[in-house]
């Protein structure tokens, strides 16, 4: 946990410094009072200062409890990858079929349900999305190559 927390602190530090750099290129003070760079610069300074405090605190503190990786972290990662794949195929399959497939697959993968309930839930989801979002609420969601 200490290492993960340290990485978090370092990321915050880099962000803070980057914000200071980019906001220093914006106008700090203009004739209309403080310019667009005024607040971001101070935000950057505060983030940097806080990040340094977090890092130092982690280095001198002895007892840090908790683990970053938990037994089920892997499952969470698998779901993330499934979501990424789903989002990649959404333009091709359309929202109703793409997201229905996602639900079917994750039910099988995570909940270890049988194929039949997974399939049925997926079909109900596809019809539900089509009817509620596309037909009823008329949100122009992509319908994919199949056009459904």
């Amino acid at each position, binding site marked *: 946990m200490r290492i*993960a*927390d340290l990485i*978090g602190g370092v990321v*915050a530090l880099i*962000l803070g410094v980057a*914000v200071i750099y*980019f*906001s220093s290129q*914006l*106008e700090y*003070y*203009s004739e*209309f*009072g*403080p*310019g*667009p760079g*005024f*607040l*971001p610069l101070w*935000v*950057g300074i*505060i*983030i940097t200062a*806080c*990040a340094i*405090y*977090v890092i130092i*605190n982690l280095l001198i503190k002895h007892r840090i409890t908790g683990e*970053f990786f*938990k037994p*089920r*972290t892997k*499952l*969470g990662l698998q*779901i*993330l990858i499934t*979501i*990424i794949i789903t*989002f990649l195929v*959404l*333009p091709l399959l359309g*929202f109703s079929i793409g*997201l229905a497939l*996602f*639900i079917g697959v*994750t*039910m099988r993968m*995570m*909940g270890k*349900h049988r194929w039949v309930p997974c399939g049925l*839930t997926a079909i109900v*989801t596809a019809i539900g*999305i089509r009817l509620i*979002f596309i037909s009823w*609420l008329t*949100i*122009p*969601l992509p319908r994919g190559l199949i056009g459904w």
Partner: protein
Amino acid sequence: MELLNNLYTGFSIALTFNNIIYCLVGVLFGQIVGVLPGIGAPTAIALLLPLTYSVNPTSALIMFAGIYYGVAYGGTLTSVLINVPGESSTVMTCVDGYQMALKGRAGAALSVAAIGSFIAGTFSIILLMAFAPALAKFALRFGPPEYFALTAMAFGLLTVFGGEQPIKTIISTMLGLLIATIGLDVVSGMPRFAFGFPQLFGGIDFIVIICGMFGIAEVFSSIEEPEEGELVKSKLQLRDLFLTWEEWIASRWAIVRGGIIGFIVGIIPAGGITTASFLAYLAEKRASKHPELFGHGAIEGVAAPESANNSASISGFAPLLALGVPGSPTTAVMLAGFMMWGIRPGPMLFKTNPDLVWGLISSMYIGNVLLLLINIFLIPAFVVMLRLPYTIIMGFIIVFASVGAYSVNNNFFDVWLMLGFAVLGYLMRKLQYPIVPLVLGLVLGNLSENSLRQALLISGGTFSIFFTRPISLLFVVVAILAYLSPVIRWALKGLRQTKVDTA
């Protein structure tokens, strides 16, 4: 007299068939969201927000408010029956509620929660009706310095109420402010932090961030650490819901105290309903003649926090409506809704949109009655819902979040951005960087920055303007004390320890 007039205006709107249906849908949905783990009020409202674009704002807000206080009722069920809080605001209810359930008094615990919530909620609405217009009138005197000082105070109070590591709370708040600056600067028209992406010129839409950080990030956290509890085996029957005379005597003052504490904490920026329920529980334990019973099924231990969380969820509307400054993540999401409909909450709202304000507030009376009835007669139906597998809930969250993010600008850029924020939110939560400050920083960012710039423009660049105006000075002093609170607490601890050592 004015109060009655407002009440009449309000009810003439809230009691139309359409709005009663929206209210009913809201409270039912809130009750369900409260029962289901891994989805809270801010997420639920954020997921519905993009879908209500074309709905009349008053009706949509009536529904959202119903979700907000409905969640406070629904979360109780899981706390009592399976010792898992459905919502963070019902954490304290687990302590004595579950013990009561083990002793066969689950029904009594649920009904004292429902009755307490109803009484405290109604009391809170009455106070809100009197207090909110007064607050709005007071806020008419606010200029840019006051608004900046107010937002600074809200951010400062977050370090008092949020998380164990105040420094991380500050980083989160700053991150929210930073995200709010992305896009074209309103004063100079210069793009900031857009890095050449034209999609970022208009800024990142709030809905995209909320759907990611509350919706999908919550899914990852729930998968990693599932909250599973065992359902209490005893069967619930209608007659179990009636309180005994002793139970009623024991809980009546707890309801009153909880209601008052809830109302006050709800108004404080960054106070929130969870803090209200914690404080009410602690106060009740201290006030009790037999504190040793707390933790072993004391009915006051259920009545107080439940009354407080409902009361606070209603009083939280006072700063939102009268100042335009939300105090909790849920009211922050509602503020985003106001912006979506092009309505600016604040002192003028009571003049420009009295129908909306009073219709919304009056609908809360109706919503609370509906919830009381639901929680007495429909409990078994919601118990069934506890058996719904998490994979299905998760699927629904992801469907709503992706449709919501897509529909903001009808493009996939926002969908990917939402996923990015989901991963960020998940990692932040894991490393104990609280999310709520980021959200408040984000919604208040523009108000904060614009009022700071206007104030400094008025003063010619000197910061003394924040210290010479009495209201602004008060806010600034509270803000400074709040930021220093970790240091003060640390010093007090040291002082106490040396006293013990010398004694």
